[in-house]
């Protein structure tokens, strides 16, 4: 974990300053640690730009591919929801693959384990970072979708769509972080990550696509009132259950 030349990748713990505990003083509170780790993640991403631009570009390219594959100039309703969510899901997989790579390769895991902080801080920081990447991805992909492929106007669908996107993103972030940590120290990590994550994310796809479909329908009613509540409830339940489970098991992945 020694310092690296400034114009290459930052060392995994380079940006953060977790204050070393003086004897007989309290170790830093968890929120402080999470904030510090999150700041490091976002700084590294901003300087290296290795995940988010790729994810966004992938999403836009996928929309183009869909245009040719479906031979359609505009989609609506079920088809629109399907195209949007499949694209977002696969773009998210790209981000998941990269999430722990820097830590695994540059000893970030060991550095974190040596610090006297709550282990779940790393989980929280990584989930929030992945969530941030997903939000940026959607800031690019959803307008692009509205422009390229969506038949009905995006503006009407937006409020309800934002609620669906938010809930689905949390689910993808939680499961994505777990699977990223699981896959990063295996041999076929780029293959195993999506393979593990896709079945686990099927309920998210079901909930998100079914919730978005009436919003994106021709003459569809937008606004949060247009979304069937049961799908939002399903997404919420999924986020809650898996949030708890991942919180419980994550530390077993960090031991070495």
């Amino acid at each position, binding site marked *: 974990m020694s310092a690296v030349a400034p114009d290459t990748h930052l060392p995994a713990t380079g940006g953060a300053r977790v204050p070393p505990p003086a004897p007989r003083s309290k170790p830093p509170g968890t929120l402080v640690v999470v904030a510090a780790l999150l700041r490091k993640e976002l700084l590294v991403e901003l300087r290296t730009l290795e995940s988010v631009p790729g994810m966004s570009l992938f999403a836009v390219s996928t929309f183009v591919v869909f245009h040719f594959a479906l031979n359609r100039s505009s989609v609506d309703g079920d088809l629109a929801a399907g195209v949007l969510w499949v694209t977002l899901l696969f773009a998210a997989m790209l981000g998941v693959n990269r999430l722990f790579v820097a830590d695994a390769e540059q000893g970030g895991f060991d550095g974190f384990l040596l610090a006297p902080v709550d282990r779940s801080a790393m989980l929280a920081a990584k989930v929030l970072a992945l969530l941030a990447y997903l939000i940026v991805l959607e800031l690019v992909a959803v307008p692009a979708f509205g422009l390229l492929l969506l038949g009905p106007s995006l503006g009407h669908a937006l409020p309800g769509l934002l609620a669906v996107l938010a809930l689905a993103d949390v689910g993808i972030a939680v499961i994505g972080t*777990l699977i990223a940590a699981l896959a990063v120290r295996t041999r076929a990590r780029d293959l*195993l990550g999506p393979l593990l994550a896709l*079945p*686990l994310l099927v309920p998210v796809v079901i909930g998100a696509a079914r919730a978005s479909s009436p919003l994106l329908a021709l003459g569809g009613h937008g606004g949060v009132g247009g979304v069937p509540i049961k799908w939002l409830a399903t997404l919420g339940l999924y986020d809650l259950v*898996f949030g708890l*489970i991942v919180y419980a*098991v994550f530390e*077993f992945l960090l031991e070495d």
Partner: protein
Amino acid sequence: MNSRGLRVLSISTVAAFCVSLCLVFFYAPIEAEEGFLQKIFYLHVPLAIVSLCGFVIGALLAIAHLRTGDQRWDLRSYVAIHMSLIFGVGVLLTGSIWARGSWGHWWVWSEPTLVSFLIVFLLYATYQPLRFAIEDPERQARYASVFAITAGAFVPLNFLAVRLSSSYLHPRVLGSSSNLPAPMALTFVVSLAAMALLFATLCSYEMTAKRTRILLKSRSRILGYR
């Protein structure tokens, strides 16, 4: 499990299956709607229930492994999940045959139980590749347990989500295990018991074989030959 226990298990499994098959073909009445095809119900549904319980048991065993650090729990978890996966193949194949007989297609998306099972199967099919991609045995066991717990929690959620998404008005024939007439209910319970016994027997055999192989390897290492 010693050899006497294994023998008891095996014999009771065979006996249970004999009884169950007699009940299925000679005692249970022919169902009004589906006719003779409905007999697959006594094979397909017990397979599915035992398989799903096996996955959940695998998750519970994995929790025990993470809490105690004892590798034997991990071995039991692995065997339970592996066996449930094999039973899962049976579920999908028998379900497909039933769908073909009922609706003329080898696969139907309108049957939520079958669809959920496919997703669960695809998930657990990654369990072994995950294990074999990690070389360090202790880390392999730990990561596998984490996966088993997550996947075990996923199973009920998945069933809920798929069930909600199925908007078809088909009468759910494959899942009609509620309000069965008494002779059918009895046959079903016996078939379920037989399938559960088979699961336990095969798991015990698998555990014994694995433990023996571990012993063999450690002995040969002690003697310095491998």
